[in-house]
């Protein structure tokens, strides 16, 4: 890591200073860090134009560095602020749009000179007891998106939650939600209004429309160990008509996002499955080219086998089988896209805390991605290629009451 930008320095200083400023309040400082080695072999063209396997990535990285502060103002009102600091030298694109008609004025790409990225992940206040319903909270700010498994995905596998991996929703967004728990541990629910773009976009990169995204989520645990849930989100992308002249925007899209989630936890076995449907409609397009709408579908299954009761060490065997099919999508400038990802791996959990819960996890995952495409297409799978990855990752975390 070289130098931090002014903004990054301010956030880091804030993290150091805030705990002292909150004298007398109950404040928790927590952190979670992922150090990763990734080696990737992927299809690339040789000099004859044929695809062959090549080593395309082989590097160490700090993939995540969550630093969080949680404070309890009174028993039922809590605040949370979390930033994600991570190593990166990826380029970023800065675009400037006209405020009048949202047209692109300029675009520039730049490489990160710092070797570090920083995102605000959570910044919200949780008001319990504001609404007179037991175990119900109103949460305002940048917070979790209660969709599918994305909001409690604990990365037992290295890969992201399916709805995150396939960019169906973002893991956090700005908005207001009411969320709570059913009596006697029968489940949980959430309803929310969000910006709709996720936590990574603000200012000029914010989606160029004024619509919010609407979300409903319900999970029920009818019997111990079996959880079933469903999520629905309505979102839009782009502005229906521009501000200058009321011209309809052909890229304007309406999205209906649905998710069915099940989790079976029985003895040493956990089985998580998820089904995602993303329906996209372009209401301002004519239907002459069958481009007016498409539906993408995904199915994922993740078996996890906990071995700690049977062997000397706290080991987990993990697997994943994930299909994402966007082949219904027909666009003139992009190829169709269907991908199957298979994962197999092992976790070693160690260094137990006061609850005898390990705070360190060593993960070894092998991920094979296969795109079901016409590989002769110049832009098949939107530039992505069949690949195999080996990832070794050390995760560690801490939490202390200040």
């Amino acid at each position: 890591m070289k130098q931090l930008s002014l903004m990054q320095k301010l956030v880091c200083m804030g993290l150091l200073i805030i705990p002292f400023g909150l004298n007398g309040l109950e404040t928790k400082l927590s952190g979670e860090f992922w150090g990763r080695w990734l080696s990737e072999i992927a299809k690339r063209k040789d000099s004859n134009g044929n695809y062959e396997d090549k080593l395309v990535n082989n590097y160490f990285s700090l993939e995540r560095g969550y630093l969080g502060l949680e404070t309890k103002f009174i028993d039922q009102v809590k605040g949370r602020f979390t930033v994600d600091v991570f190593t990166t030298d990826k380029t970023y694109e800065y675009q400037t749009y006209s405020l009048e008609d949202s047209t692109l004025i300029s675009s520039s790409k730049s490489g990160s000179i710092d070797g570090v990225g920083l995102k605000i992940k959570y910044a919200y206040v949780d008001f319990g007891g504001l609404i007179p319903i037991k175990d119900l909270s109103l949460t305002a700010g940048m917070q979790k998106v209660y969709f599918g498994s994305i909001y409690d995905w604990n990365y037992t596998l290295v890969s992201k939650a399916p709805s995150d991996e396939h960019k169906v929703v973002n893991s956090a967004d700005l908005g207001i939600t009411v969320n709570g728990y059913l009596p006697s541990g029968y489940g949980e629910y959430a309803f929310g209004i969000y910006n709709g773009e996720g936590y990574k976009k603000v200012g000029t990169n914010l989606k160029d429309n004024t619509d919010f995204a609407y979300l409903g989520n319900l999970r029920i645990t009818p019997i111990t160990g079996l959880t079933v849930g469903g999520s629905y989100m309505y979102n839009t992308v782009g502005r229906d008509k521009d501000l200058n002249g009321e011209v309809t925007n052909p890229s304007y899209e309406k999205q209906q996002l649905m998710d069915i989630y099940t989790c079976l936890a029985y003895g040493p076995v956990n089985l998580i499955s998820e089904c995602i449907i993303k329906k996209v409609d372009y209401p301002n397009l004519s239907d002459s080219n069958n481009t007016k709408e498409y539906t993408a579908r995904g199915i994922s299954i993740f078996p996890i086998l906990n071995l700690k009761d049977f062997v000397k060490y706290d080991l987990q065997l993990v697997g994943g089988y994930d299909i994402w099919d966007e082949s219904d999508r027909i666009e003139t400038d992009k190829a169709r896209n269907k991908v199957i990802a298979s994962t197999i791996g092992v976790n070693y959990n160690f260094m137990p805390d006061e609850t005898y819960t390990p705070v360190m996890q060593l993960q070894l995952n092998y991920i094979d991605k296969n795109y079901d495409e016409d590989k002769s297409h110049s832009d098949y799978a939107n530039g992505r290629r069949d690949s195999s990855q080996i990832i070794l990752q050390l995760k560690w975390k801490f939490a202390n009451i200040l």
Partner: protein
Amino acid sequence: MKSIIKSVAPMLMMLLAFSLNAETKNQITCTGSTTVLPIAQATAEVFMNNHAEINISVRGGGSGVGIASLQNKTTDICNSSRPLKSKEISTAKAKGINPIPYAIANDAITIVVHNSNLLNNLSIKQIKDIYTGNIINWKELGGANVPIVVISRDVASGTYEVFNDKVLAGAKVIGSAQLLASNNAVISAVSNTPGAIGYVGLGYLNDNAKLLSVNKVTPSELTVKNNSYPLSRKLYMYTNGKAKGIVANYIGFIQSDRGQKIVVEQGFINIK
């Protein structure tokens, strides 16, 4: 995919066989509330004396730690001085853990002050005012001109949760309060600090600190059992599903006449 299933199936069969063997273990772990700790330790000692082949490991940490341990499957018994919340039950059930409570004793959160304190009684409202900083000197309550030193419990404590629910009603404890990790630490701090006030489970009362009545009711077997003492509560042991095997035998022992006699010997009130 078929090959994966073929390789995983024998492993599952082996694990099933292992899991059947696991039922025969002779080790019990018991984690959580520091209030329940003396009951768990004393009963475990007697139980192990009568069952030499069984080993019971008792750990403290607070009710919150015990509940997290039960959810993480790192303990057989969770000791808790409060009932589980909906969120905790929901989280546990989703992980395949079915928390079943066993009441093992009646208890009261007692209000204790330094022996030099002139007062004998406080109302719930007065206690709340003290803990939220609205009353900062004993003379405001008719006592000596001594600043009040507020001593409370940390957030992992079930005693704190019950105190927060029954006295503070969600209000924030004054920032200058000392937050201590155990009943022993509280009673020790109160007995050594003129002007101090604290709260502990019945079993931790001793002559080094002065017990106050609350709303003019003194905690006793009668007032706790009939709930006329406003800070009465039950103490629990939680297991994953209905207790079985040696865990059931141990909890059954605590609930038996012999076990309840030990509960009383430890300063708590029986559930009979």
